């Protein structure tokens, strides 16, 4: 039975890479509507692999439901319009010739008319305070600015769910504070994978700890972060 209060529902998800590495081993995850959940765990725990499943970029065994819809080939386009994925390295994500085109890309793909695209791009760029860079080439921006553009490029289609992989990696303290404030101002459901425990503490009331492809604990973030013995045993 589908739980309508859940934005993300993952059941028994397992995934093995072609080289035989078991990246996910029977993951269960439930993220309620507008919740903010942190995925934490050491390198190789399966955080990024799990995130790629939430957008249908990888297909493992098990079930992934987004906004009540099971992720299948038929539902993939609709689900990708609802789940915005921000990659760890913005250079992997940004490929269009100008910031405007970069942010507009998903909106044009979603079939919005030109006027709507323009309005949404303007709003998304304003949200991340990058309006004045619209005609710049993304390659010439700083890492913090590229991160903001990467976030704007998923905000443009008004995704209900934002999935962010290491959003604070490579940012200076001011850029990191600005990013936290920006993410805090969004109303979308957030799933954040990060090693930055301070960011997790400030942004996500709930946390899921992964280790070797399995969920080893799901609890309130303050409880997990206060349990230093557990953090140490989890490789954090």
């Amino acid at each position, binding site marked *: 039975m589908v739980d309508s209060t859940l934005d993300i529902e993952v059941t028994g998800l397992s995934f093995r890479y072609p080289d035989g590495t078991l990246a996910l081993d029977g993951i269960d995850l439930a993220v309620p509507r507008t919740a903010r959940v942190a995925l934490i765990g050491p390198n190789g725990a399966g955080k990024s692999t799990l995130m790629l499943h939430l957008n249908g970029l990888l297909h493992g065994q098990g079930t992934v439901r987004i906004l009540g819809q099971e992720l299948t080939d038929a539902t993939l386009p609709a689900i990708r319009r609802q789940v915005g994925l921000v990659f760890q390295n913005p250079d992997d994500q940004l490929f269009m010739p100008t910031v*405007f*085109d970069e942010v507009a*890309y998903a909106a*044009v793909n979603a079939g919005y008319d030109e006027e709507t695209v323009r309005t949404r791009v303007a709003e998304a760029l304003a949200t991340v305070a*990058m309006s004045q860079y619209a005609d710049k080439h993304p390659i010439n921006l700083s890492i913090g600015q590229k991160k903001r553009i990467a976030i704007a490029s998923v905000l443009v289609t008004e995704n209900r769910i934002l999935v962010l992989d290491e959003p604070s990696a490579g940012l200076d303290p001011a850029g990191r504070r600005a990013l936290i404030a920006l993410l805090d*101002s969004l109303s979308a459901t957030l799933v954040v994978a990060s090693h930055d425990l301070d960011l997790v503490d400030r942004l996500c009331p709930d946390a899921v700890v992964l280790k070797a492809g399995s969920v080893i604990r799901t609890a309130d973030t303050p409880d997990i972060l206060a349990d230093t013995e557990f953090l140490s045993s989890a490789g954090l």
Partner: protein
Amino acid sequence: MSPDTTHSPAQVIPQLRDTILSPAFWLALLAVLIAACAVVNVGRLLALAALAAITLSAWLLTRTPLRRLNRLLPIISFALFCFLLLLIIPIDAETETIQLPLWGREVPHHGTWFILALLIKSTLIVLLTTAFAERLSQRDLLAGLTALHLPAKLVSLCYLMLRGLDSIAAELRRMMRARDARGAVGGMRAVKVAAAMAQVLIIRLARRAETQAFALCARGYAGRIPLSHYRSITLFEGIALIISLVALAWLTLL
């Protein structure tokens, strides 16, 4: 990072570059010129002179820096290699030959003309492409190819390959910096290090390409890279292109 309230939506939209002619026109004109260079008979000096004059004008109009002439190096190297082959290939009695001026050495007539034609044509094509590239941005290329209604997959491939060059250059720069920071040395050791770097570069680029493909698909990539706004070819531009095509055909073929 507080939301930007100083820019209205209209201000945010980059204006189409204030040029008289569209990127699609320049790309189509370049295609016509390349075709003319490819089919021209090098024996027709008038046609060659006209194409050379067009190429020179393109360089002057686009203010292409002379350092870009280094793009001719691969062509010159290839032509030299072919010429050396002509010198070492034995000539039998039935082969028509010509004598090289100054040197006096006999070389095959057809082979020499072939190399000469190849050198002249490819030089003109590279010089033209370099001059046009000086004027057209990556966005112009994408917008122009899209406006010319070329197959969407072909446009995607062309654009992503071009964009991929930035990634390769950036990755290579990082690797070279890391190599130099650890005290790079010359000689045979440098050759071995360069070979190892090439291997690592290929692996890194393959991984990066996979992530970039994921990033494309995550935002709805379906075989094309759409732009929200671009200029199509106008009637005036279309007529100008047809006139250019006819003029160049007359010059090179008749």
